[in-house]
């Protein structure tokens, strides 16, 4: 069972500092990021998670090119299917991994750092200086040894996404929804007009975790959510039953093929104007922008409404992404140098110039240039006091995918089996070996 003190205290307002700092006019941070004392040389290998044709890959390559231009060190990038990379991560890291790669903060970084697979990038984080808020650094810190193994670069909120034009046509205003009943009414109204009320796909087994997370945080609060994911609360608790009961109330408004589509199916539902609201992380916005500026400008996000007044809308899933360095890479110093660069102002500028719609944690980044959607993302993030990283980063890897994923799928298949599903989930947590 999970024994470590989860970064609970720290997570509170982890990123809020960054968001607020970002909203102010570019904070002065004058430290030259990514510039170590000694010059690092040699080719650096970099893994891009995704397809080379993705908008994200083009952005990563542009940022890497900027590094080459600055240092003269060549960056050799290869694109690897993101799921394959995650599934084979441990094997890849034990073999001959690329020096640096885009990665995710939370359990996935900390557990692999404990096993000695990731290189310590604390020095690079120090070099970034005040560009990263203490809260953001805390979020990237491994609670076991207090060091950082990921340089946090971007983050995004999970919230209700919709197309402004669709809602306007329907005569609905999602920005006015404040309570659970409002959300249900919105879904109902959307469905009446022949669209999907609440778009969901869960073929991948993780997509619906976003809905679970937010309902749990809204109903029972952030602390209960994190405690549940770390074994301090029971899945058989009436509070968890309540979460699923709420999720069940959304099922009638969902598309009838939830288990047939994955996250990209959800994205397409929204892109093709087939649905009203969709609960998702904003990272997919890059695909909207790649499709057309018009589609991107039409995209909007609002926070998931309040359910329990005690907790209001004080929590959100906002996964922290960044760059990690493999401990077994051929050029570890080079990897660290590149990672530091990608987290610095120059790296960010290069990525943004290539069309990146992500919001950056660094306060050196000039947020006044943010477009309306990014400003709205910051506002959504700013409204929350507690930051979750998403279920599969907030709990152990041998629990999230193999246990919680199938449990939520079973629930979506047969909501009546809920009690049995939760009993089994708890049983499987109890059977996990100590870490």
């Amino acid at each position, binding site marked *: 069972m999970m024994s470590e003190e989860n970064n609970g205290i720290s997570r509170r307002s982890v990123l809020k500092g960054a968001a607020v700092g970002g909203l102010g006019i570019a904070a002065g941070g004058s430290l030259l990021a990514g510039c170590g004392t000694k010059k690092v040389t040699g080719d650096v290998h970099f893994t891009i998670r995704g397809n080379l044709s993705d908008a994200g890959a083009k952005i990563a390559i542009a940022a890497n090119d900027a590094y080459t231009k600055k240092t003269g060190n060549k960056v050799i990038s290869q694109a690897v299917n993101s799921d394959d990379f995650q599934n084979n991560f441990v094997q890849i890291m034990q073999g001959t991994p690329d020096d640096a790669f885009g990665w995710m903060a939370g359990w996935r970084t900390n557990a692999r750092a404990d096993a000695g697979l990731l290189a310590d990038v604390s020095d690079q984080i120090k070099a970034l200086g005040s560009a990263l808020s203490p809260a953001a650094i805390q979020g990237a810190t491994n609670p076991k040894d207090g060091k950082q193994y990921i340089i946090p670069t971007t983050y995004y909120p999970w919230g209700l996404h919709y197309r402004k034009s669709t809602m306007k046509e329907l005569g609905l205003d999602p920005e006015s929804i404040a309570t659970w009943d409002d959300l249900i009414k919105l879904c109902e109204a959307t469905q009446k007009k022949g669209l999907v009320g609440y778009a969901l796909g869960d073929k991948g087994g993780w997509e619906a975790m976003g809905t679970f997370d937010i309902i749990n945080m809204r109903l029972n609060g952030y602390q209960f959510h994190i405690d549940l994911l770390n074994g301090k609360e029971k899945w058989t608790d009436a509070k968890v039953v309540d979460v699923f009961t709420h999720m069940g109330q959304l099922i009638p408004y969902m598309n009838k093929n939830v288990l047939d589509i994955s996250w990209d199916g959800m994205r397409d539902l929204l892109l093709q104007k087939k649905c009203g609201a969709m609960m998702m992380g904003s990272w997919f916005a890059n695909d909207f922008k790649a499709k057309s500026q018009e589609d991107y400008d039409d995209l909007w996000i609002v926070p998931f409404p309040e359910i329990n007044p005690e907790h209001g809308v004080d929590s959100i899933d906002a996964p922290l992404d960044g760059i990690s360095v493999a401990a077994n890479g051929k050029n570890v110093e080079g990897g660290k140098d590149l990672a530091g660069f990608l987290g610095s102002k120059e790296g960010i500028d290069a990525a943004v110039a290539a069309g990146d719609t992500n919001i950056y944690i660094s306060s050196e980044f000039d947020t006044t240039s943010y477009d309306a959607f990014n400003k709205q993302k910051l506002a959504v993030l700013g409204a929350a006091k507690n930051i979750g990283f998403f279920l599969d980063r907030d709990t152990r890897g041998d629990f999230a995918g*193999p246990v919680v994923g199938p449990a939520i799928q079973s629930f979506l298949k047969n909501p009546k089996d809920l009690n049995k599903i939760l009993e089994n989930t708890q049983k499987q947590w109890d059977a996990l070996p100590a870490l």
Partner: protein
Amino acid sequence: MKTATANKKVRSRRSLSRNDRFTLAAFIGIPTLMQIIFLWLPALITIALSFTYWNGINVSDIKWAGLANYKNIFFGTPVFYEALKNNLIWLLWFTFIATPLGILLAYQIDRKIKGHKIFETVFYIPVVLSLAIIGIIWNFMLQPGGFVQGIMGRDIGNAVSIWGNYSINTYVIMGVASWRHIGYIMLLYLAGLKSVDPSLREAAAIDGATEWQTFRKIVLPAMRPVNIIIVVITIIESLRAFDLVYIIYGTSTAWPLLNILVFQNFAGQGISMKGAAYAVILLVLCIGPILLYLRNVFKEDLK
């Protein structure tokens, strides 16, 4: 005369020349060594690891778990029984539907029914594709936004649920898997049938045997070696099934199979030796029925 005695000598085992012995040793030794290194060693290690807790990274972290992984699987993991059920359905479907259909087809084609060349080609084509490719093809056809949905005029919002519809998806998957399996069995059986002496059938026909009697009493026994292969292939193909379903569902266990569980727990993001335990269960399931079957066959042969 001289050459004749020399030949005799060569044929007897004891007097192999040094060169022959070397060749034989190499032919037997190298594959055996490779079997041991790449098959038996990993298999034994997997069996040993199934009794431990380990995250697959540092050898020093391996902890003895006893039967905990198995207990967890048998008593705490409902998805295991779902996977077992799916594997069993796969086995029954292949045994009673797909394989007999393949045999029937081969028999008819061998009799040169009308259009047999066309049938042969049509059923043979899927055999050249791997199940992974077949998964990609059918997933593309049936998924929301796919080809078939498009023909039906369904967009992604109102696409007919197929892979996620639990009253039909099992049969759709069986159909897709059979699409290839039928052709595969047909091909094997056809090759076997060609080697059956036609005079046997003629004699049966002269004796007034019906078509069914000829098949059961004459052809089937004459095809014994091929039958053994087909039974073994049918069992193994159904239990080791993985690629087709992995392409469609990924590791999400939305339609679980034992092999998917092995992959999810062994190679996935949260590595645990539960995966090794699944692999051992699968190994026992695969080897058990085959050993039993082969023992029966050889017993009969001895009689």
